[in-house]
Structure formats: C-alpha cells, structure tokens
C-alpha cells in the first residue's frame, strides 16, 4: 500500500521532510510509526515522545490504533496551537 505521509511544525523539522510517498504494509498508525522510527535518527527524534504526537488519517483527527486500510494520507504533527 502506498500512502502519502505529511509532517508539520517540529515533527516536519525533525523528520526533515514536509511530505513523502511511502510504501508500507502497516495495519495501523502505531505500526506505521514503528516502521518509520527505524529509518533514521530524524524519524526517531520526531517520534521519541509519542504523547506529543497527533495524527490525522485522510484529513480527520485520529489516533494510533486507527487502521490504515484504504487510507491515502496520514499526517503527523504536535498538538495544535491555533486561535
């Protein structure tokens, strides 16, 4: 399965990318993160504290247990600070 992964704010800065197309067989968001952190130090640093990471699946706020089947876009970012 090919999925677009987006990174925002300091997650983007640590990963060093704002967007990438990624081939994965991860079943859930948690599985995807487990794959990503093995890729290099940037990913490891970005996901070092999972309590500081939020996720959106296909542009809806979601959680780490969410399944990735049929999903096209996953976004990782810190807690939002709008307003």
């Amino acid at each position, binding site marked *: 399965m090919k999925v677009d992964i*987006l990174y*925002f*704010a*300091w997650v*983007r800065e640590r990963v060093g990318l704002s967007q990438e197309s990624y081939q994965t067989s991860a079943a859930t968001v948690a599985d995807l993160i487990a794959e990503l952190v093995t890729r290099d130090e940037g990913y490891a640093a970005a996901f070092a504290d999972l309590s500081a990471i939020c996720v*959106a699946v296909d*542009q809806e*706020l979601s959680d780490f247990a969410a399944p990735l089947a049929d999903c096209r*876009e996953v*976004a990782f*970012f*810190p*807690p*939002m*600070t*709008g*307003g």
Partner: protein
Amino acid sequence: MSARVQEAAFDAAAEAAAFQSAVTQSGAVVSFTGVVRDDTGSLDYMFIEHYPGMTLAALEKFADQARVKFGLEKVLVIHRYGRLQSGEAIMMVVTAARHRKDAFAGADYLMDYLKSRAPFWKKEVSQGSATWVAAKDQDEAALAEWSPNSAAKES
C-alpha cells in the same frame, strides 16, 4: 461558507460590520479577535503553519457544531497563516444569536476548538531564534468542559 483561511491580513472591524449587517433575527452579536502580542519586547515575527488540505474543512465543521449547539443565526471564522507581526490580528470569530448567553457561549466554544483542534501551529521568532508555541494544558481542559459528561458550561 462560515470560515476562511488566508495568508493576507483582514480588517476585523469591516468584517464585524459586514457580519452584523447580514444578521436579521439576532439581538446579540459577539466577536473575538486574537492579536499577536510581543510579551518580551523581542519578537521579530510569528509564523503560523497549517495543514492546507484539512484546515478549512475543520473550521467549517466547528462553525457548524457551534451553530447547532447554540442555535446561532450566523457564524464567521477567519484564521490567518504565514508571517505575522506584533499587533496584527491572527484570527476572529463572530457569532449572532437571539440571546446573549448563546452568542457568548458559541464564540467561547469555537475558540476552544480552534485553540486545540484546528490544524495550526505557531512559531515565535525572536532575535533570530525560533520556538514552536507549546499547547497549553488549560486549553485542553477548556475543551473538555464542553463534553456532555462535564458538569460545567452546559445550559
């Protein structure tokens, strides 16, 4: 459309005036404007990043939720992204309702959602050094008070 996401500055007073002139049923209009402040006197600028594919839909969703929950006649949300200077308006929310308590609560509710659930991230750049603004526990707590299981704030 109740929401706009834009990089350009907006004229909060003109927006509020246009909003109010389009209101026909409501005796109460509440507006909130968020402004960049330079607490330390050293802010070069604020940078707001957002998630273009998601932002507008999120704002529209929160505006609809507020409209239904508080019986609002009309709602407006404007939120900027990009580079902002001290004193510039970041965003505004305007609500119109028959009763003042609903107009206040609708605006307050929307602000709590915008603070913690709209995909914006603020970075402060001061003397060349950039810091991402941390989310506040109290913002998350404020949001929790609107949940049906909370004793507070429900009418």
